[in-house]
């Protein structure tokens, strides 16, 4: 299992920061990261659902069904990757790449 360290969370003992404050800061960081990752994943999922309208099927329900299958698989992966990949922010970058791809897929001609 890979281990990721976040520089800055473990502060030098010389600094007068209590363990409780340290813990609270860590929780706030995690909550912030989770909120950003969730927002990005929701945006990506929404864009994917919009992109499904360009699929070559007549039935609108089928298009959204297929979009739903992609979203149900991709959303949890993006959240997990975004939350786990903190070294060099690769998780967030992955989310941004996915979101950008969804935007491009909507803009570029088929």
């Amino acid at each position: 299992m890979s281990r990721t360290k976040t520089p800055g969370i473990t502060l030098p003992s010389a600094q007068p920061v209590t363990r409780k404050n340290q813990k609270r800061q860590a929780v706030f960081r995690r909550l912030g990261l989770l909120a950003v990752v969730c927002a990005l994943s929701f945006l990506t999922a929404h864009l994917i659902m919009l992109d499904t309208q360009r699929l070559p099927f007549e039935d609108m329900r089928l298009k959204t069904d297929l979009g739903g299958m992609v979203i149900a698989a991709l959303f949890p992966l993006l959240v997990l990757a975004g939350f786990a990949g903190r070294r060099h922010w690769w998780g967030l970058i992955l989310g941004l790449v996915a979101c950008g791809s969804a935007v491009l897929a909507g803009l570029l001609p088929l």
Partner: protein
Amino acid sequence: MRETLRVHMGWLHSWVGFLAGLLLACVFASGTLAVFDTEITQWMQPEVSLTQETSLTPTALQAAAQTIQAEEGKGLSAFLTLPSHRDPVLRVLHYDGYEFVGTALNSETGAVFPARETAGGQFFYNFHFSLRGGNQPGVQIVTFLGLCLMVAIGSGLVIHIKALWPDLILFRPFGARPRAWVDAHLIAGVLFLPFIAFMGYTGTAIHARVLLPAEPFFRSHTAAPHKKEKTAPKGRVLQAGPLPPPLAPLIAQARDILRSPDGNLVLFTPDEVHIFKSDAFGPFLTRDHVDFSRKDGHLLRSVTQSPPAVATMQLVRGLHYARYAPLPLRWLYFLSGLAATALAASGLVVFLMKRRRSSGEQFFFRVAEALTMTTVVGFPTATLGVFWANRCLPTALSGRAMMEIDLFFIVWGLCAAHALLLSLTRLAASGWRQQLGVLAGAGCGLPVLDLASRSHAWGQGASVFMAADALAFLTGLIALCALLKLREPAA
């Protein structure tokens, strides 16, 4: 504390799992019951005889057609479900905004069974995917919970990936309390992981469009407003059609084309009669159908081919809904559903146990404990309350179905109020014991009530009643064991 991946994922698993798990446990439990929705309806309508054959007579179909026309006269869009081996009754149903309800007819004589009004198993089916809150926000909430479930499963896998094999076989029910609960959580999670992940994924995929519709959040103001055709709301008709032609030859012809011998659905529009293939025919939940003219009964068209993309979705739906499943497979779905419920419930308990020492005195912890109690004990108590209400309320009461459902929410609400009151006054342990006592009484007492009500015969076709009563009794026994265990001092 070192911020390792495992610690990070553990935090995500705990919080997402707990917050979503409070409702997911109820979604799992109601989905588990919905596997036997038809059988629950049969238990709740003991007046409907289950001993008859699945054969259909023209007399019965004529009576059904007249009932359909009468329902349409009231503005209801009624349809027929033809008898099958699972449900050997001809039913005229309509959608009431939440459930499919209606009358049951004898498939040979066409006589209406004087059955009590009830939402039956349909209530649990509806609760499973919408918490009985409609598309907005009900289905949206459940779909969001499905996404949370997938995140919780993923993070749980990261935490336990090294110890998957030991988790699979290690269960110490008589170990110290936290250990036993963690073992139960892990064994349910690992052993039934494929089922839970599959059902979570398919359930989320099926309703994803409700959470994220394929419409832009911000509409352009310059775009012309889209004109909608005037359509009737779901379950209603704008105008009644003529009396349908004799249905027996149409059904015979449709069954021949669809190769579906029983249990078909027959839908009516003012101009057409649509006969659908039975959902029990196979794992593909097809919507193959044959259409006839409602005026003279001549064949209009048949739709029996599905392109691969459509077939994929049909398979996803078919495997999730399990309408194709024969009885043994249905029991397997049921047991797997129970395991998923146990996974969620044990996860909630583990979350509390891990934090009791450090945060037990905090307000939020007490609220969390009350909510857990409401989910773990209150929900099954309210569920048994529906069964009790079904036998206790007068059979001829009007609005009876709604009253059963109201009682479910009243009992659940009372459990929540009781749990909150006792948790906030530092008497949570008494709260657990009292609610478990009520659950034990309700479960163990249900077979006695069913027997005392004399609402049905115990001869042929009584397996539905015996199975339901036995499961209720088992629930009561489990609650009793938990109650006795709680009385012991902690190890």
